[in-house]
């Protein structure tokens, strides 16, 4: 019960700060919208490339990527807040006040999820407003959001582990860069089958490729690689939860 109380308190404070501060909430909504507009709008003719067979169109194809990207970066941006809390000393207050400290990690993760859900709702509305087509049954789209939520959890737990090890805003690039690389070494603009050379080889082993392909399958109404995608996302979330808890222990040891 106490862990839950700590998690809710930490999440409330993070969300309160984000949603009462235009400087934090506007970029959170504007960046995914910018990427969605740039990719789905500006690159829409990629859909005409021979061999590009995605029945729901390029808008839906890119929507999945931008949704997953927003989930990942929603987690990373929350990690920036954790690093700031360490730099300002507020994290020490949390460590001191919380009888059960793993609740602090859970609280940041809960905040990241709630933050991203707002972004996801906004992005979805915009996508439907510009005519995104979705195939399949009613369960397919929620399955995509569940997959994205796992990506969000993996990203915040990764960022949390970094923030708690370095305890400085200078940890920002270290949190961001691997996530950026994993995202863009996946088949972002065209399906995996159209990639060639080294990028194809990298994308083939990139766990996010499975997630992206499955997500696009959900939107098209023809789920593919579902078990592999959930396995990869959940596996990363579990792995990074261990990383985050180890980070918490290092922060405790450092005082």
């Amino acid at each position, binding site marked *: 019960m106490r862990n839950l109380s700590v998690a809710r308190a930490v999440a409330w404070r993070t969300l309160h*700060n984000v949603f009462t501060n235009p400087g934090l909430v506007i970029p959170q909504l504007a960046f995914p919208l910018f990427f969605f507009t740039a990719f789905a709008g500006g690159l829409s003719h990629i859909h005409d490339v021979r061999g590009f067979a995605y029945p729901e169109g390029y808008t839906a194809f890119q929507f999945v990527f931008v949704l997953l990207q927003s989930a990942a970066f929603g987690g990373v941006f929350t990690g920036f807040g954790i690093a700031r809390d360490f730099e300002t000393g507020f994290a020490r207050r949390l460590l001191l006040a*919380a009888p059960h400290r793993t609740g602090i990690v859970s609280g940041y993760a809960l905040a990241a999820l709630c933050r991203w859900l707002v972004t996801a709702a906004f992005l979805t509305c915009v996508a439907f407003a510009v005519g995104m087509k979705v195939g399949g049954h009613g369960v397919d789209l929620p399955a995509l959001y569940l997959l994205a939520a796992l990506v969000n959890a993996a990203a915040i737990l990764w960022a949390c582990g970094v923030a708690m090890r370095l305890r400085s805003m200078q940890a920002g690039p270290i949190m961001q860069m691997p996530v950026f690389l994993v995202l863009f070494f996946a088949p972002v603009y065209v399906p995996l089958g159209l990639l060639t050379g080294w990028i194809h080889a990298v994308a083939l082993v990139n766990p996010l490729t499975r997630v992206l392909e499955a997500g696009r399958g959900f939107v098209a109404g023809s789920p593919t690689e579902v078990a592999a995608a959930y396995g990869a996302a959940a596996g990363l979330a579990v792995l990074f939860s261990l990383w985050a808890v180890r980070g918490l222990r290092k922060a405790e040891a450092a005082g």
Partner: protein
Amino acid sequence: MDHPNTIEAEKLVREFKKGPRAVDGIDLHVDAGEIYGFLGPNGAGKSTTVLMLTTLLPPTAGAARVGGYDVVREGPQVRANIGAALQEAALDPLLTGREHLRLQAALQALPREERGPRAAELLDRVGLTEAADRKVRGYSGGMKRRLDLAMALVHRPRILFLDEPTTGLDVQSRTALWDEVGRLAREDGVTVFLTTQYLEEADVLADRVGIIDHGRIVAEGTPDALKAEIGRPTVEVIPLGEDGRGPVAAVLERFGTLVPSSRGIAVRLEGGEAGLAEVVRALDAAGVHVAQLELHSPSLDDVFLAKTGRSLEGHGAE
């Protein structure tokens, strides 16, 4: 199992990588309901000790029990029973005072219905009711300190750690904080562990004082006992005219040993401060005219000087 409001440490050590031993094997025993003043200059190890006792920093060696719980093995129980206001009042500039208190109450798992009334009660107690719904980025240093103290008290802790709570405060805020700390110990039976670099603060507030220097406790006891340990009070008399020096010295030497004085004649009172009245009566009886008479009691700084060879006055915050 009984868990007293005590603080105990045995051979507590904290070493930092590539650094000296910040705390070098200290032993502590603070009784329930006692205000213990931990006095020392910059870098003496005061804050490091507090960090270990509040479970924010694991000791390198030794053991400590706070409220009957081991600080290493029973951290959650220790944190549930203590409140702490650390040296820098780390507050969130985007939250109001009331929101801070509600957050703290939630972190401590206070029932939801108690959080609002408890926050209001504490805001009133520390004089922040009017500023309660303002964001703390607009608070003065004194207001932040008072809010910090209120946050430390949200869950009614049995033991309170205050790390230099009045550093940087004006006299009025400092006095208000002293009153509140004194009240907590006297009325609520809270054990208070207070670090300070202000001698007056330790003198006024603390039941017992520990003096730490270079990570070691060099003296411990009640302020009066520590002062008495290093010497008796001195009376310094400045006669009205130069020809009065002889008669004054003749009177004063009956009360103790004469000691050097740059302005007049001084004597270390063998009978302690109680001898002052007799000195005055004797000077009057001898018909000696006196321009000035001063009683110099040993201060905690004198104690510090005697124990470490250095003066504590004038040192900045740790």
